[in-house]
């Protein structure tokens, strides 16, 4: 209530445009500086309250609840019984866990490394002294990022299908020997799913990098040009060093996506064929919603979160600027 009143009062004064009232405010500013700062920080908190509430309800609480449930045996309906650390010990006995975690790290190549390299290349082409305006291309590359992952999965499932778009193109260019049901193949399903991940995250990386590169003053490029440096030199000496921060952010975000991958894989292959595309996210789902071992699923989810935190910490240590 109080914050609401504050919010109503401030814009009224500011928007009045009355020089007298503005002067009055200015003259009082010195004496009431601390109070004003306090008030403005209160307003800031008020603005933050709503997003925080959403974050608390939809992120922090479920996360805490997951940790809590991981110490119980519970099928989602009946009474919970205390399990202590048993679920955590059992996590390491899940038969497909090792291969699932291995796949998570392999997915980082597709979700993280390839998109960053491709996005850097595209950034080099799109920025620089001449900065060609390729807004449409940038938008097209960014589109997969805003599509719902389930829609992406379903679409690519069709494209990879026996008579899907990819096989049709291969046959059309005379490569019918190469055409195959990609998602049914033990050798290709993982690569196929990984490339979809790369397709999705490249747009995000590109958005980060282009935004970063646009901050670079054009004079720097001109200076390199004057020294006889070409486009490659400009990229290595100017663009890339300026993008260090953006690369770290892109790597962090995409690594989290890779390690927590679930939706696209569940829709496209449900982890198959066999365990060819199994990831921890799919295992968590199967434990929780197929066998109703909610405690066990929660324990695996907590272990997975710890793994994500560990990887991100390592990434940040490597990314730290050395003197």
């Amino acid at each position: 209530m109080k914050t609401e009143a504050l919010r109503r009062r401030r814009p009224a004064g500011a928007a009045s445009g009355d020089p007298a009232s503005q002067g009055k405010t200015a003259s009082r500013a010195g004496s009431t500086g601390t109070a004003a700062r306090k008030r403005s920080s209160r307003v800031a908190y008020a603005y933050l309250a709503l997003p925080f509430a959403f974050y608390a309800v939809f992120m922090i609480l479920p996360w805490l609840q997951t940790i809590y449930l991981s110490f119980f045996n519970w099928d989602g309906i009946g009474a919970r019984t205390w399990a202590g650390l048993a679920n955590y010990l059992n996590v390491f006995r899940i038969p497909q866990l090792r291969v699932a975690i291995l796949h998570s790290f392999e997915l980082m190549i597709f979700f993280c490394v390839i998109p960053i390299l491709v996005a850097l290349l595209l950034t080099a082409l799109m920025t620089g002294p001449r900065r060609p305006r390729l807004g449409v291309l940038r938008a097209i590359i960014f589109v997969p990022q805003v599509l719902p992952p389930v829609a992406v999965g379903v679409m690519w499932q069709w494209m990879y299908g026996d008579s899907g778009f990819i096989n049709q193109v291969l046959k059309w260019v005379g490569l019918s020997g190469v055409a195959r049901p990609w998602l049914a193949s033990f050798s290709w399903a993982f690569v196929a799913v990984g490339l979809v991940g790369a397709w999705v995250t490249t747009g995000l990386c590109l958005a980060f990098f282009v935004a970063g590169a646009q901050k670079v003053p054009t004079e720097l490029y001109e200076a390199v040009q004057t020294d006889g440096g070409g486009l490659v030199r400009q990229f290595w000496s100017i663009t890339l060093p300026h993008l260090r921060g953006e690369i770290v952010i892109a790597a962090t975000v995409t690594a989290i996506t890779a390690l927590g991958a679930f939706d696209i894989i569940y829709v496209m292959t449900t982890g198959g064929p066999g365990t060819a595309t199994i990831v921890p996210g799919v295992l968590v789902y199967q434990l929780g919603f197929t066998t109703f071992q909610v405690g066990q699923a929660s324990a695996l989810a907590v272990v997975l979160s710890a793994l994500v935190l560990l990887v991100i910490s390592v990434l940040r240590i490597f990314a730290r600027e050395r003197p």
Partner: protein
Amino acid sequence: MKSNRLAGGLIAAAALVAGTAITACGSSATATGAASPGPVSTAVTSSPVTLTLATEDLSGLTQSLVKGFEKLHPNVKINIETSAYTAYTANINLRLASSTPPDLSEAVVLNSSVQHHLLLNLDKYASLYHWTSAISPYALNEYRMGPTLKGGSGPLWAVSAGFDLTGLYYNKTLAARLGIQNPPTTLDEFNADLRKAKAAHITGLEVAANDGHAAFLIQQVADDYEPPTPVNNWIFGKSGATFDLPGVTKGATALAGWAKSGYINASANATTLTQAVAAFTTNKALFLNDGNWDAAAIQKGLGAHVGFAAFPAATAGGRVNSMVGGTAGYEISAKTKNPNVAAAFLNYSVSPQAAASVFASGNLPSSAGSLTPAPGTILADTLTAWQKVQQSKGLYGYYAGAYEAANTDFIRTTEELMGQSLTVPSFISQVQSGWAQAHTS
């Protein structure tokens, strides 16, 4: 409730929002309800009543049953809530445990619903309506479950309008092109037909391995060699039962062999049942091993150019088998305010009046009655197959019903079996260890 207090303490930092989230979850943690109905009666009230029915049935059968029942009792309105199979199985017990459960729900995760006392014991209605004499025991026993939560016997918890049958759909156009006159009746004939198809570059068998249907083929071959008792004991989780049966070895070996020989669609491991049916109805394969729940869609797609037959026996005159399960089997919530109306709906679904719509949907009605399908249709073939199966007492439950994770395990292991990355003995031991884990915990 003690656990709720603990949770409350843990999340004190986020005080405002904590209450709602944890309470919402906690309310589902208590699941007590009278498992036996009060005074039972066949009388349906004449005052307006609205029931809710939760289902994953997309075949239209449930809709037609509801329509028929509402016509009979115009004061009753049944609202149908349909969800996809995976979402349905994941949520139905939570819905039943909530304060507003559906009055009627499709029985797909019976043991956990019974375990938590979420359902009404139907024994009194069964004797009131004479279900035990009117309904085939094949359709009824699936929904019996005692206190040990092993199926097959004990109190009755659900009743199904019909029951399904599995067998072999065959494409008559492709068969004629290959010079095949009749559907195979022995495994040797079946193999010969598959060889012919391969030689003519036609997919012999369309398999939906991504939905666990490769296990159908293993089981149908295995059941040619194994009598029902040991197999059904394993499916119902009887202690001492085992999956390590000689017939299973034969079935798994056959599947791996067919995959290796290229008789099965190359995309089997990424093919769902819907996709397999679509491929079969567009002349992409000679055979499809499936149940009669897809009969209507297949008949619509292929018209007169399709037939259905019982799965081939091991040898001429050998046992003809089928997996059998209830279709549109409904249970009543322990908390329903209108148990008599809900039971009257169940009784309508197994009545001769409803039998026609059950049969029209491709399923065999649970109640005996005179069925007169048009000759040359899948329905006529289904009836012939059913008679053969019944004569040779070749009725089996589904492998996938043996434990909660069974279908997930079968999808993974059969895919590896077909990909030649899992041996037959390893396949058997992996499935058996999943079963043992589920039935000891």
